[in-house]
């Protein structure tokens, strides 16, 4: 099913929860709604389900206006964070509860329950009560209930957030597999950007009542439209550095100093308006070394504030001239280590310049002469 949201808004009394949401979700797509808590993503999902009325705007399912249709007339299924399994019904009765009103024959009903339980590998447990199942199994029952409806659209509201990390990654793959097998349109709400990145065909980032960006996971990662998306997508978070573009408009001055005390700066071939900006650099785009290579226009000495070893790599919090940076190090780091050297990236794709006030991305790629495209020159 194809879903279109047109100028969708939601207000509770005086507080606006969603403003002017416009987007299209394609047939058979795994579409992820991601955002911090309070960003309105669950509200948007419930508006699509018809559980919450819209304040203004329209919702179209396959070119049909369903804005005022009741949930049952929208032919969809929904999976909830707390699974919403009735505790006094057995696993199969819970699934039956979801399809009872579809007007199926008794044999068809049984066949659907059998098929759905088989798909989530829970057939042997069909007579059990939900309480006798593990959290992961309970979530699988909730998935089976959605599958059994054969609805062309399935909505999921943070279905994995009640599970522990191990189970969560298992269930992530399970949901992706089910989506591939069945091919329904799937709208998936999460606050976890890792889920969004690893599961979604396309991802919508919501914050502050509005759509921040819609795109494939890599689009969001490589070309965030604004500082919020840049920071939200990727772990550890993108470093956001306050920078100054001087009067020539061609020099981005960084708050860092080289070993010889000279301030660092990026040079542009084409001028941009001077003033304050924010520069985003991902921790994984910074290179760490522990060998002093002397004064270099891209390298600065840093003090290590904290070391978080993850096994094959480490995340370091470092400072230079009172400015903090988080750096990914490809190797393990001795936690007593206090001194290191960080090399700033020179590839333009690894630099994300944002306007200071609204955080919108300033496109740097066309600010570089054609022969230099892809490389930005960092000098002292």
């Amino acid at each position, binding site marked *: 099913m194809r879903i279109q949201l047109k100028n969708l808004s939601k207000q509770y009394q005086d507080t606006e929860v969603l403003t002017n949401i416009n987007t299209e979700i394609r047939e058979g797509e795994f579409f992820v709604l991601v955002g911090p808590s309070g960003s309105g993503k669950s509200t948007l999902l419930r508006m699509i*389900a018809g559980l919450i009325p819209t304040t203004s705007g329209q919702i179209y399912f396959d070119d049909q206006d369903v804005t005022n249709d009741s949930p049952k007339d929208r032919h969809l299924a929904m999976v909830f964070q707390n699974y919403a399994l*009735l505790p006094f019904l057995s696993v199969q009765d819970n699934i039956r*509860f979801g399809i*009872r*009103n579809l007007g199926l024959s008794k044999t068809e009903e049984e066949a659907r329950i059998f098929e759905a339980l088989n798909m989530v590998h829970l057939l042997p447990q069909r007579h059990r009560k939900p309480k006798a199942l593990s959290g992961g199994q309970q979530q699988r029952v909730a998935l089976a209930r959605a599958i059994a409806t054969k609805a062309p659209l399935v909505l999921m509201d943070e279905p994995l957030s009640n599970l522990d990390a191990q189970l969560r990654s298992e269930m992530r793959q399970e949901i992706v597999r089910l989506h591939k097998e069945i091919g329904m349109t799937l709208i998936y709400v999460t606050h976890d950007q890792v889920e969004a990145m690893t599961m979604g065909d396309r991802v919508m980032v919501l914050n502050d009542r509005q759509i921040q960006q819609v795109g494939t996971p890599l689009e969001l990662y490589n070309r965030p439209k604004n500082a919020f998306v840049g920071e939200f997508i990727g772990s550890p978070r993108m470093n956001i550095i306050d920078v100054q573009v001087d009067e020539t408009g061609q020099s981005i001055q960084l708050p860092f100093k080289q070993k010889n005390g000279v301030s660092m700066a990026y040079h542009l071939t084409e001028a941009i308006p001077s003033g304050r900006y924010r520069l985003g650099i991902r921790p994984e785009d910074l290179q760490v070394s522990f060998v002093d290579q002397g004064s270099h226009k891209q390298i600065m000495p840093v003090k290590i504030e904290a070391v978080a070893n993850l096994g094959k790599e480490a995340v370091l919090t470092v400072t230079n001239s009172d400015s903090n940076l988080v750096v990914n190090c490809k190797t393990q780091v001795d936690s007593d280590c206090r001194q290191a050297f960080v090399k700033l990236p020179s590839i333009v794709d690894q630099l994300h310049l944002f306007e200071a006030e609204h955080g919108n991305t300033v496109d740097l790629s066309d600010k570089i002469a054609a022969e230099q495209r892809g490389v930005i020159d960092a000098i002292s």
Partner: protein
Amino acid sequence: MQSRKTATLHTPNIKLTAVKSKLNLRQNSKSALWFLAPSLIILLIFTFYPMVVTVINSLFATNVRGENARFVGLANYVQIFKDPVFIKSLGHTFAYVFITSILTIIVALLLARLVTQRIKGQAFFRTAFASTMGISAAVASILFLFLFNPSVGLVVTFLKAIGAKQTNLLVSPTGAMFILILSSVWMGLGFAFLNLLGALQSVPESYYEVAEIAGWSNWMQTWKITVPMISPTLFFLFVVEIIGKFKTFTAVDLITGGGPDNNTNFVAYKIYQDAFASHNFGIASSEAIVLTIVIAIATWIQFRYTERSVFYK
């Protein structure tokens, strides 16, 4: 001691936790007794001692001074079951208990449903409905007596205004019963309401969302989700309400005085009258024992038959 422990452990069909607590109780019984002593002493003096005395009194005939005159065995019991007033009293008590308990719970459930819905002034209604908990039975009875007072009562004035012929409800058997049931339901509402409100609020919203998407009507949602989910509370309320209503005394004493023609002379009130108006403690004691047995049986029936359909989380 050691052998007893093993014996307990090997007893089949006893849950391990039960065994454990039994063992602990035995090991700590000395210190436990000290902690239990205050409530045990109070129970002994105010509950068990009067119970024993009541059983003894019920086996004796009482003289004019209210003293146990001679042992008569079960003669008092035979006598009360030959007494048409006591039989009538039992019947009317049953009717009253049954109607009030069910009404109280149904009305409280409706009010609780109302308050859990998003309406304006929710906090006000929540407090208002629960407020009857803070009112004593005596005050409530006086209040209802005023409402139904034949000359100045608000309800009576209203009845006159709409042209009703019989406006003094207290002189008609059904009228008097009606007022008692009304005041009793009103009194019991607060407690039932608060319990049901808590139970309703503990039902996760997503259950209803699932049902909404699956196309279940509002009525079916109540039947298929709400009732099973709050069944432990409903069961608890039925047990407590029924036990409580069997003991109704204050309202009878203050509003109807058991009349007219013994129609509202419920067992608890009859016991009081036989004991303190007629000074026939033997008869009153045996009636009290019968009431206790009736309550015990009613409670047992509920546990035996109703509890089956209760779902515990």
